[in-house]
């Protein structure tokens, strides 16, 4: 007889999600513009959608050109939702903004939002900010790029794929420098200084370059949430100086520096051999600042980039809803991760985050090594209407070898085979829960050995390092087995007419009986097909 030592069931839920009720009530027209690296969904004009794609493609092209990244190296497609105005952005995810206290009439939403996800990044933009900026510039007023933070986030994404051990000053400096890329007629402008950085530099003494070079993620100088600091401003200045010097002199010292870092040469030694001795560089940087030598550089428009070459088409209601739903999820996911970073700086949370980042980098490397030489010429990811499909995959409860062991460490849960929460024996019949209140559940009377719980051949990956955050949510749960009867009857309407049990004495027998039935079910199961009729049962939402 087949012993069902591991059972795998598969449950898949496919959702074409409606993110918010307001979407259903409105008749909005959405357009999708696609390029090889971006999908833009916009409720504005197709032209604005194309311009958004062009802007980001330019940043990517200039960054990759400077760092000599081969054309075949792929980046995951980034999804951008370009909303006409602030109201639209509010409607996209009111819950998210409300949680940040940004839905009151006195507050305004940011011009954009960059959401770095474990698998995919998302961006939201308010297009009315572009109009405002153009108006300000037309009036002769210097206007900072409203999407500075978003561009900064995107260059982080590009820099992270360049070299995992890039020094932080160069990552942040590049994000500030390349993030300023913009179209100026038939040319592109790169490196325009931000007013914020200049204000900081004019009011703060420069850090010694040795200090700047040593800043890492744990340094007090580094605050990704608040970039108004000398570290960011000086990183921008140094990067600006080094890159424009390379452009001006036709050298490639910065890329040589990065290459040496890639060969594990110590940063200061790598600097001495390429970009210059730090002490001398410090003086040059001071002079660069004092003489206001920093300015934007004009570069020719890359021939391969043409806004008219991007595909654009109206998005179906289902597809636009799916993309927006995926974005809402990404925002909630990012908020959860940020909460973990800010609120729980314990070892487990940091480990989970580190593992998530490692996983992300591994995936990036995988995609790079699998890139086909011709890939640069074709779209790198086909986006289908099921982008926002939600899937529940149910699989075996298996240990997944080392993967589960790593997770156990992260969440401080003992490995499955040693789990004190797991009963020491497997009931041949009824089982009792470890979490039951004393006396409510009878103890087992008869037990057998636990079969080994090795990973079955068909098992899917069910637990990931980043899951700790979700386990946190589960730990706050109030399991049904502990509910008072009154709550039970209120929450589960199907229990109407229940005659409450006076004790748990019958439970072991019931569980044994149902267990035996399911053993037969597994043994006797054959391939089966049925006619399935699906109808929408309900649809609605709260305000």
């Amino acid at each position, binding site marked *: 007889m087949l012993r069902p030592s591991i059972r795998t069931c598969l449950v898949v839920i496919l959702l074409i999600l409606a993110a918010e009720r307001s979407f259903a009530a409105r008749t909005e027209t959405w357009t999708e513009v696609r390029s090889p690296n971006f999908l833009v969904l916009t409720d504005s004009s197709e032209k604005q959608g194309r311009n958004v794609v062009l802007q980001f493609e330019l940043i990517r092209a200039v960054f990759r050109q400077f760092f000599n990244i081969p054309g075949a190296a792929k980046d995951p497609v980034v999804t951008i939702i370009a909303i006409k105005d602030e109201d639209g952005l509010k409607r996209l995810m009111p819950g998210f903004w409300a949680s940040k206290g940004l839905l009151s009439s006195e507050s305004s939403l940011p011009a954009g939002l960059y959401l770095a996800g474990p698998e995919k990044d998302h961006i939201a933009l308010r297009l009315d900010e572009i109009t405002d900026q153009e108006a300000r510039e037309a009036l002769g007023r210097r206007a900072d790029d409203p999407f500075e933070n978003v561009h900064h986030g995107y260059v982080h994404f590009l820099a992270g794929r360049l070299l995992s051990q890039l020094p932080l000053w160069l990552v942040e400096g590049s994000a500030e420098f390349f993030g300023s890329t913009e179209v100026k007629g038939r040319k592109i402008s790169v490196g325009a200084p931000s007013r914020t950085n200049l204000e900081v530099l004019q009011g703060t003494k420069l850090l010694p370059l040795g200090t700047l070079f040593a800043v890492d993620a744990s340094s007090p100088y580094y605050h990704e949430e608040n970039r108004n600091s000398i570290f960011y401003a000086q990183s921008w200045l140094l990067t600006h100086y080094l890159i424009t010097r390379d452009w001006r002199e036709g050298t490639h010292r910065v890329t040589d520096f990065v290459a040496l870092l890639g060969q594990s040469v110590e940063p200061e030694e790598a600097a001495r051999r390429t970009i210059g001795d730090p002490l001398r560089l410090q003086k040059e940087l001071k002079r660069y600042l004092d003489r206001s030598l920093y300015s934007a550089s004009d570069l020719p428009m890359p021939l391969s980039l043409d806004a008219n070459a991007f595909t654009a088409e109206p998005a179906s209601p289902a597809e636009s809803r799916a993309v927006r739903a995926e974005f809402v999820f990404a925002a909630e996911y990012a908020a959860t991760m940020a909460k973990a970073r800010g609120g729980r700086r314990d070892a487990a949370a940091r480990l989970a985050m580190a593992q998530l980042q490692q996983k992300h980098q591994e995936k990036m490397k995988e995609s790079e090594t699998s890139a086909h030489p011709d890939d640069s010429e074709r779209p790198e990811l086909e986006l289908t209407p099921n982008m926002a499909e939600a899937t529940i995959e149910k699989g075996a409860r298996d240990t997944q070898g080392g993967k589960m062991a790593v997770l156990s460490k992260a969440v401080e849960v003992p490995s499955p085979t040693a789990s004190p929460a*797991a009963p020491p024996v497997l009931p041949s019949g009824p089982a009792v829960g470890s979490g039951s209140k004393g006396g409510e559940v009878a103890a087992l009377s008869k037990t057998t050995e636990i079969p080994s719980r090795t990973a079955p051949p068909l098992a899917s990956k069910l637990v990931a390092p980043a899951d700790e955050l979700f386990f946190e*949510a589960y730990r706050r749960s109030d399991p049904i087995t502990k509910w008072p009867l009154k709550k039970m009857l209120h929450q589960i309407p199907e229990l109407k007419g229940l005659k409450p049990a006076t004790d748990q004495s019958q439970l072991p027998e019931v569980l044994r009986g149902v267990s035996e039935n399911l053993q037969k079910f597994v043994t006797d199961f054959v391939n089966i097909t049925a006619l399935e009729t699906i109808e929408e049962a309900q649809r609605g939402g709260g305000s």
Partner: protein
Amino acid sequence: MQKFRYLMLARREGDAFTLVEYRTDLRGREEHPQIQTGDLIKTTGFASMALFFGPLEQPWSDFRLLGQQTIGGDRTEAVAFAEHIEPVAVMGRLKIGKASMPILVQGVAWIRSSDYQILKMRTDLLAPLPPVKRVTTLVLYAKNEFEGRPTALWLPQDVKVTVGMGNFEFGHRHMYSDYRMFTVKSVIKPD
């Protein structure tokens, strides 16, 4: 309303048993996402759901006998269960796009007192996983006999799935009929 063929495939490798459930269109082509246009939710896995009460899964849940209830003339024992909050208890993942979350559930099974057959089952997430507030599945099982098979199989007959996402709540009803056994034959054709 849409109609599909719903397939439940038993896969056995060594001691491992896998019940794979998926749907095809009525011509037998595997369901393509594009044919879902206009739909909100489709779910599979109901045949497997009772396995929370299986011998291998019982150790990873807590159980509580709630009492007795009559369903369609049958006396049943209502038993609540909640999965343990630990990685080994995870039997599935909720995926939205490429992001995903581990699924742990709790619920109630209505088990016929006379033969311990699960007649009805309800599951919910053990806790909301923002932005997913709720995934509630209610399954009614019915007895199905197959020619040449020694025992009848209890399989889903009527299923209701309700999903709460943000401020939105929606659901689908799945009805199953015309259960049949089938075998798959494959032929390798030379070039």
